[in-house]
């Protein structure tokens, strides 16, 4: 590249900011419900283990939530600094949706997080449960509004355009646009599934390092149960989401499949190097009829290829992101089944090998979530509002050098934060279980229970 394209740089900057940001809400949206579950179990049973589980995981939550908030503030400025055209054109739609997110969620979660973290000894157990529930509700409401806006950009509905400006016609249709129910459920389940693997992963790490307590085992089982239910559910929702995309954004699906020409009985391509210049795949390994089966639920069903669309997204990045998402998703399913079989059917502690697997899979949800978002957002290109308004029309006229410099600054900062985030979690996890620190009782650790 001899000359840096300001549009590409602006897109890269937005992608970097939002990809980094989403890592943290992905964990906190799910984790706050898990924390509420721990607290409720403690309240109902009086079993101290649940309280210890809460005490440990609320630290992870606080750290994750804080990073989510501060990187999220960045997002609220990004539209104005880099994409002013989007606001001039569609501000009548985006404004209210973002506004409701701030009004109904941001204050709720941030304010009651303070109560949750610092107020436990000032209020009754019941009030603390309510505060925790409000934080959980707040994060989910936030996901509701922002996913509604994103879905509207993917499958715009409920508006009219006069003189190039968007006006809302039906707010109900705007908010509950065609792809919203699928995207929202896919993301909420993704968040809980990511949490399930983080819960199992960090617990496994503690088993392997012999710093576990009775609470660690309860946490592991909670993660295992969540993964066992959600991994298959997520694949089911993903399938529905894909069919919805086929109906409303067929060009995106064609790019996901790497399908250059319309076919009846289209194959599913396992591996290929899509080549934009020759408009074909190199080194393709295909499963005959599989794409038609998945997308139309009929072996001879018609799947429209990229040749039918005047504008379509870049193929390679969408194609490969999709394969990474599906691949990691299937891997999560296999591990979830393995853990479920060991823990719930054979009722045995996991083997060291299995624990190594779950420890390795700690951040697998992150990989799948990022890959999934890349599929859907790169798959929306070249449109900002699908089929109506181009990304290139919205970009601010900043010199390439300015955008490049700030982009580099962000990337350095993000690397720094990620490094210390993982490091700090490891440090928290390496401390011996709190319940055992002041007790003479010997806890042998879960690994010793395997004969």
């Amino acid at each position, binding site marked *: 590249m001899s000359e840096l394209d300001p549009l590409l740089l602006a897109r890269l900057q937005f992608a970097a900011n939002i990809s980094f940001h989403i890592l943290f809400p992905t964990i906190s949206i799910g984790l706050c419900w898990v924390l509420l579950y721990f607290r409720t179990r403690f309240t109902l049973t009086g079993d101290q283990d649940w309280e210890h589980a809460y*005490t440990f995981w*609320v*630290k992870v939550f*606080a*750290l994750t*939530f*804080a*990073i989510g*908030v*501060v*990187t999220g*503030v*960045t997002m*609220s*400025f990004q*539209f*104005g*600094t880099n994409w*002013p*055209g989007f*606001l*001039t054109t569609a*501000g*009548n*739609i*985006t*404004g*209210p949706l*973002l*506004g*409701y997110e*701030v*009004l*109904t969620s*941001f*204050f*709720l979660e*941030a*304010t*009651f997080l*303070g*109560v949750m*973290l*610092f*107020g436990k*000894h*000032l209020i009754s157990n019941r009030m603390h449960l309510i505060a925790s529930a409000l934080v959980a509700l707040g994060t989910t409401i936030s996901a509701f509004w922002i996913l509604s806006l994103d879905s509207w950009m993917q499958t715009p509905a409920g508006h009219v355009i006069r003189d190039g*400006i968007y006006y*809302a016609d039906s*707010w109900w249709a705007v908010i509950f646009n065609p792809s919203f129910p699928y995207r929202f459920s896919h993301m909420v389940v993704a968040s809980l599934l990511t949490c399930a693997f983080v819960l199992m992963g960090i617990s496994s790490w503690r088993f392997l390092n012999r710093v576990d307590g009775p609470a660690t085992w309860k946490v592991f089982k909670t993660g295992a149960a969540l993964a066992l239910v959600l991994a298959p559910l997520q694949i089911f929702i993903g399938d529905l989401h894909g069919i919805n995309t086929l109906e409303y954004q067929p060009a995106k699906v064609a790019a996901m499949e790497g399908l250059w020409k319309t076919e009846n009985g289209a194959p599913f391509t396992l591996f290929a190097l899509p080549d934009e210049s020759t408009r074909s795949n190199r080194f393709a390994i295909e499963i005959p009829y599989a794409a038609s089966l998945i997308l139309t639920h009929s072996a001879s069903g018609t799947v429209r290829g990229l040749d039918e669309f005047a504008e379509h997204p870049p193929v390679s990045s969408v194609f490969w992101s999709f394969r990474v998402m599906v691949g990691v998703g299937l891997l999560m399913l296999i591990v979830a089944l393995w853990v479920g079989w060991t823990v719930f059917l054979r009722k045995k502690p996991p083997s060291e090998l299995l624990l190594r697997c779950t420890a390795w899979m700690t951040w697998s949800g992150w990989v799948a979530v990022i890959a999934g978002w890349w599929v859907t957002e790169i798959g929306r290109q070249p449109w900002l509002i699908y089929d109506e308004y181009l990304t290139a029309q919205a970009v*601010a*006229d*900043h010199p390439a050098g*300015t955008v490049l410099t*700030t982009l580099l600054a962000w990337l350095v*900062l993000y690397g720094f*934060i990620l490094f*210390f985030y993982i490091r*700090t979690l490891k*440090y928290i996890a390496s401390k011996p279980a709190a319940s055992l620190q002041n007790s003479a009782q010997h806890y042998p650790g879960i690994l010793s229970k395997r004969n």
Partner: protein
Amino acid sequence: MDFWLPVVFAAVMALALLVYVILDGYDLGMGLLLPFATDDEKEQMLASIGPFWDANETWLVLGIGVLLIAFPEAHGIVLTALYLPVTLMLLGLVLRGIAFDFRIKGTADHKQLWNHIFTAGSTLTALAQGWMLGAYITGLSQSGLSLLFSILVALSMPALYVMLGAAWLQAKTAAPLRHKARAWASVAWLPLGVFFLLASIATPLVSPTIAAKWFDWPHFLYLAPVPLLALAAYVMLGLDLFVKEGWRWTQFTLLALLCLLSAGGLGYSLYPDVVLGQLTLHEAAAASDSLLFVLWGTLVALPCIIGYTLFVYRLFGGELGAQHYE
């Protein structure tokens, strides 16, 4: 309705930004003051803002959010023009936010590093916000004089935040930190006054629109109470610091009043423009239908937000000590 909707939203925006400056002002001030405290005092200072800082920052998101909702075109113009200070402010806010949590949860040998990052982030944020405010008052003008003015306002912001932080500590902590905070406030008092005075003199010089409004009869008369009251508040602040110590919240209240007066004066001077000399509130306003849709939500949500914010400040009210972080 078409006339009032943008005005109502401009008022909500001004309120949110005013609350932001006061609330995040004191916790940013904590970052600026941190290097001057002992290790033990640092813990107390950060514990005093622990339950609040997240929510305090949300007022900025609301202020900027209302700019986006109600005046989308202005949001684009202002933030695009302020690209550099906005980016610096965001970097500062991120650094400060992560430092707060990492220093508590990370290893002890890194605590010093996070303290420095917390201070650096807070300083960067304060300076960048001053720069943004300065540039906004000049109508985003790029001239050398405007730049000079922006630098002046950029330097005033840390002085204000130091005062707010020190006032917060005097209200929330016990001796000896309380006495130390008083000493810090005494040091910052004069610079704050000088900066306010210089900024007030410079404002009409860099902005002819504002000058016309200030020195025009009868506007002059309407506006006159603002600088007089501000001067009174500033003098009372000095009296509390150097003559006779009053109620523990006196300084914080006076500083909040000073912020309110500045915001009021500024709002009055800018009206009806949202980007001075370029765009009025009504030109930039989003469609009435969209504004109305958000207005209903605001009428329900904003009182709730204010209600539970007050509840939390009461819950963690009084002198620091009983709070226990986990």
